[in-house]
Each structure stands twice: as C-alpha cells, then as structure tokens.
C-alpha cells in the first residue's frame, strides 16, 4: 500500500505544483518582511524571517486533503478499496506517505527560508546567525507543523470527501472561524485550537497579542489533533458505503 500511494503522488503533476507553492510563499513572506522595514541587525527579526518556513503547512494541509477527497472526486477510491478492502490499512498508508511527504516539503521550505533570509541579510549588510538554538527550534517547528497538517488534511479529506468542500472548510477555518472562536472562548482556551497551537509550534506568531502555548506544548497539541483526525477518519471510512 505504501508503494502504491507513493506511485500515486509521483505519477501526476498536481501534487508537485501544489507543493511548489510552499517555497514561493516562504520567499514572498521573507521578502515582504525585509521590504516592510524589518531590521536585519535584530536577531528576533531573523527568527521571524526563518519562521516563514512554517507557512508551508497550509500547503501540506491541502496536499493531505487532496490525497483522500481527490480520490473520491475522481472515483479512483473504488479501485483503491478493491485492491485493499482493509480500509484501515488504506488510511494508515496515506497518513504515513503524506505525512512523510509533508515533512519533506517542510524540509524544503526550511532550506528555502534559510537561503532567502541569507540572501536578504547579505544584501542589506546584516550578519546571519544560524548556529543558535533558536534557529533550529524555529525551523524544526516549521517542519513538524508541515508533517502534522498533512496528516490532519488526510483525516479531513476522509471525513468531508468533497474536495472543494474540504478545502473551503480548511481555508475558512484558518482565515476566519478559528479567530472568531478564539475571541469567543478567550485566549486561555483559544491557545488549544489547532492554528494557535501551530503558531506556537512554528513560531510564526501571526495571532498578535494572544498568549500561546510554549513551543513543545503547541507541538503536542497539534500532534494530538493529527492523531484524532487520523483516528476518526479510519472509523468513519470503515463503516461507509462506497457507491
């Protein structure tokens, strides 16, 4: 099953086009930070720049969604279940393959973040400090977020099945719903929500004043969401008729 899922990814172009958007976002994000007056001599600005690596998690979320909902859309899920009637194995294989691919995409994004930051810092006369613990925590957090969101995407795609619906739900939640829910329940609870947790994990801190969990806590919470989504996806998929 693992090999079959791997062949699915490598035999079509769309996943590559999608994943290529990750590094582009990172390049644009770092460039935007510098252009809007980020001080290249400030170590915290350097951290902020590198934290853009975590933005690729939005892409790996969509990538994970497409892994399952895309199969329902094209009708290829029928063939997948004919090959492997044990649907638990199908979802597990998808979680493994897409999780790994998500992590790989996170690695590429981290490398791009370092490269673009280094380029801007050189151009602006700043000195880049990559040896610090902070750097690796930031990049590692971004990579972990890319992994976790790919897995969450697989789960969401299996739950919603309608590709457009699942994508709209995911993007709507990120852009709008979680912020509103966060305000309703207050920051003490809001920091347990998935995207607040991811901001803690990948240190993007887009949420402004909200107090976030510590990085490790954000990581654990996000991992918890990934496990829950994957688990619910398996349970729901097992009992469902494929017509």
């Amino acid at each position: 099953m693992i090999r079959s899922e791997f062949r699915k990814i490598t035999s079509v172009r769309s996943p590559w086009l999608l994943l290529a958007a990750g590094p582009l976002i990172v390049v644009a994000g770092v460039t935007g930070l510098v252009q809007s007056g980020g001080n290249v001599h400030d170590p915290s600005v350097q951290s902020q720049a590198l934290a853009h690596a975590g933005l690729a998690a939005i892409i790996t979320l969509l990538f994970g969604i497409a892994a399952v909902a895309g199969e329902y859309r094209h009708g290829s899920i029928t063939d997948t279940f004919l090959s492997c009637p044990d649907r638990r194995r199908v979802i597990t294989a998808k979680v493994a393959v897409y999780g790994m691919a998500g992590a790989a995409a996170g690695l590429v994004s981290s490398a791009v973040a370092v490269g673009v930051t280094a380029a801007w810092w050189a151009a602006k006369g700043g000195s880049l400090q990559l040896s610090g613990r902070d750097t690796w925590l930031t990049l590692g957090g971004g990579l972990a977020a890319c992994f976790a969101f790919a897995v969450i995407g697989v789960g969401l795609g299996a739950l919603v099945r309608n590709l457009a619906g699942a994508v709209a739900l995911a993007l709507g939640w990120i852009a709008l719903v979680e912020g509103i829910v966060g305000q309703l329940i207050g920051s003490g609870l809001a920091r347990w929500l998935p995207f607040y947790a991811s901001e803690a994990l990948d240190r993007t801190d887009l949420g402004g004043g909200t107090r976030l969990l510590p990085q490790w806590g954000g990581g654990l919470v996000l991992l918890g969401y990934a496990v829950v989504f994957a688990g619910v996806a398996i349970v729901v998929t097992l009992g469902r008729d494929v017509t």
Partner: protein
Amino acid sequence: MELEVRGLTKTFGPVTAVRDVSFRAPAGQVTGLLGPNGSGKTTTLRVALGLVRPTAGTVLIGGVGYRDLARPRRVVGAMLEAAGFHPGRRARDHLRVLAAAAGVPDRRVDEVLDQVELTEAAGRRVRGFSLGMKQRLGLAAALLGDPQVLLLDEPANGLDPAGIAWLRGLLRGAADQGRTVVVASHVLSEVAQTADRVVIVSAGRLRFAGPLDELGGTGTALESAFLRLTAAQGAPA
C-alpha cells in the same frame, strides 16, 4: 470458483435497492446479470466487492467474502461503471499504482496493456482517452491479477463493434479456461450472444435465474422474456 449471492438485501435510507436476492454464478460459465436501470445490479456487484455493506445476506466468492480475501485482485477482477481515473495519470502509471497495491508484479502491467490493445496509448494521460479506451483500461485493471472471477458492470459501454466482438472473445475465453464471469448489462442482444446463464432482477427483486436456453436462447426471445419478467411488478425506478 463460484459466486454465490445469499438472501441479499440492501437499503439506502428509505430506498430498498435489493430485496432478498439469491443466485449462483458457477465457474466456467458467463452469467449475465440483467435488469432495467436502477434494478439493483450495480448494488449487488458492489456488495460482492466489499464496497457496500449488505443490510442482510451475504455474497461469497469461492465460499469467502471479498473483504476476507488475502489478495483480492488475484482472485476477483472487477470493473465498475463509477470507478474513475485520475485524468492526469498515464495509463501505465494507473496500472502500476494498482499493481503495487494488489501485490502483482509490474511485468503484468505490460501484459494486460497488450491484452486490451492499449500498449500504444500506455504513455498517454487518461484525460485524452475516449470512452472506449477508458473501458479497455478498466478491463486491464480487472485482468491485472489474473483472477479466477471476473465481475464486470456494462463492459461493452463505449466500445465500437470491433471492440465488442473482441470483448465477447475475451469473456468466452475466460469462461472456457474455467473462470467465473459475471457481466451486468442491459444490452440484451449482447448478453444473448455471450451468456450461458442469466439472472434477471427488477425493482430489487429476483425475477429469473437459470440457463439462457430456458428463455429461448435468441436475442428476440430474451427480449420478450425480459420485458415480461421485468414488467410483472412495479415500474422501473
């Protein structure tokens, strides 16, 4: 290896798609599964393939349920109408994906492509395929595991006359090798030429199961028998 449908009932919400249907499709014969649109043919095949859970009853293949087969594609080859392809995937890659999941060696991919006469189109993306070519690719997928049982839903759809003749030879040959062949269709003239046995369902109920000869054996005799049996109760859904 026999296919046996035992007391199968399937309801989707308020709709009863199949109601207490039982029949056997023996090895070495082509069994035509006939019925009007919405009569329960496809649902029966989907239950047989473990895609849909029966409300009551079972379908056994050589005495075992599909979901309990260790390597199902090596036992049962299936082609369903709704089964789709990723439009951006090349035909050969589509089969390689299935081969990996089915535990079938990759050399089978080229063998079945050859068998369905798609070798020249193997490197093309499915998006550019005609309906007939997609049918052939679906058949290639069904044949991939060299299965003892073939379950095919409207396999002649979109094939040109030469393709239909070729398909007839393929099904006949498979049955003559001792395989179990079940073909769901509503093209009666085609079934009359290919099938040894027929099973007729209408509005989810079994109307007839037995040798084609009992219904007269010719296309016109089959048609009048079919219309009589399916008109007996209820309008087509």
